[in-house]
């Protein structure tokens, strides 16, 4: 593992020892993060408008009004959708244009993260971190809002690795693939795609569930940023530099 890089002041000396700065986020991560802050919100909100056109979910290849739905919801309100009024064609224009940004930027980010080893270094947890005792300790600390401090805060903790890793490596790929599986042309070109999800209506269900998990992730993520110190966290995602919280006497 790389040691976190220490920021040096103009004197060439390390910054104050108790509030050392580390390079937390590299450029590809920062670019993708802020692009997604826009793109994912547009995808979620235009997706809810599209869902409103037929707010029922089925499992299998087919499913329409006379078939049993496993989930039926009232339409989502205007403040949650793009556009805010009923416009299926308009929502599709937004969704299918931003889908290109989402898909292409995801591929570029994953490539960059493979090359700069971000995936293995920061996102995939190792066996030591996954040990039940360690994991349980982290859960307890998080529940008491005792976040890592000092040197321990220089790197992602296990819960961060697990959630970011799951979003980047599982949730977002599933969202993209299940979205593509709903395309009749894609199903002719790549029949395995829709088979992966056991049918087009199941793919639509998976797409909706994953979108819900994405929303859940965003809410928890925003709450954690607020709790952990929003200025330092937001600044680190802009400049890349994270100021380590002072070591806490334990």
């Amino acid at each position, binding site marked *: 593992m790389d040691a976190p890089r220490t920021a040096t002041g103009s004197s060439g000396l390390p910054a104050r020892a108790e509030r050392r700065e580390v390079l937390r986020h590299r450029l590809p991560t920062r670019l993708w993060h802020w692009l997604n802050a826009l793109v994912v919100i547009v995808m979620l909100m235009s997706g809810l408008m599209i869902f409103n056109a037929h707010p029922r979910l089925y499992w299998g290849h087919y499913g329409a009004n006379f078939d049993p739905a496993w989930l039926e919801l009232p339409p989502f309100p205007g403040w949650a959708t793009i556009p805010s009024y009923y416009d299926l*064609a308009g929502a599709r*224009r937004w969704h299918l244009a931003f889908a290109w940004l989402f898909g292409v930027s995801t591929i570029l980010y994953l490539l960059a993260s493979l090359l700069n080893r971000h995936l293995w270094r920061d996102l995939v947890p190792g066996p030591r971190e996954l040990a039940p005792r360690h994991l349980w300790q982290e859960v307890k600390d998080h529940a008491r809002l005792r976040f890592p401090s000092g040197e321990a805060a220089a790197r992602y903790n296990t819960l961060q690795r697990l959630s970011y890793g799951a979003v980047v490596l599982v949730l977002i790929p599933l969202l993209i693939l299940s979205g593509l599986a709903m395309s*009749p042309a894609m*199903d002719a*070109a*790549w029949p395995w795609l829709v088979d992966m999800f056991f049918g087009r209506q199941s793919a639509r269900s998976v797409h909706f569930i994953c979108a819900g998990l994405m929303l859940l992730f965003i809410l928890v993520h925003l709450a954690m940023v607020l709790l952990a110190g929003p200025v330092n966290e937001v600044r680190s995602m802009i400049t890349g530099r994270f100021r380590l919280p002072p070591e806490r006497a334990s």
Partner: protein
Amino acid sequence: MISRRRLLVGGTSAGALLLGGCDSLSQNDSFRAVLRSAEGLTMRAQRLIMDRDALAREFGEADMSPVFRSNGTTMPGTPEYMRHLANGFADWRLRVEGLVARPLGLSLPQLRSMPMRTQITRHDCVEGWSAIGKWHGVPLATVLDAAGMSTRARFVIFHCMDRFGDVPYYESIDLVDAFHPQTILAWGMNGKILPMVHGAPLRLRVERQLGYKHAKFIDRIEAVDSLERIHGGRGGYWEDRGDYEWYAGI
């Protein structure tokens, strides 16, 4: 230090701004043009990865929807249509015209005596639901070849007998889809004569695109070199009226 309250207030106002902004962007012509450019990108990308003749999945009898819901116009109430319906479409002719060497007027018995293709396929509505049904009809390629289509033709228009107010329904596809083996003019469904709600006497099946492309109640096919002079110029009723994509492969 930014207080949490200020962040929350700021977040809410940003959200309101985003929503209002998205609605005005949805109605802004230049922004819509940017969103619309994704349609061509999607079409080119899908055509690139898809064999020209890649087939949509064909299902077995056991996979069919118990009830195939109808959609769009279920009864074109025009006097002309009612007259045809009353006498079993005996005087109805499918006119094939435009850029063809031999304009045709085909009766239903003539269409039924032409080579028949039967396919059990999934119908995907733009709203999100799917239904699987069995279709019987003559390949569009057979009809176009019989009429001797000009090499200048680039699109095939399907003129329909149903009206939305005063406006006739119509649709169009390009030659890739027109000559695709599964693109048929269906006169039968689920082992019976095509019912009225599903487009009697003749409807299009263009299996790699969404439902609104599958024109019903067809009485005239026109080969053209451009969509511009046809009705609103965008190649279909919903494309003209609702800003739906002309390429509906996704």
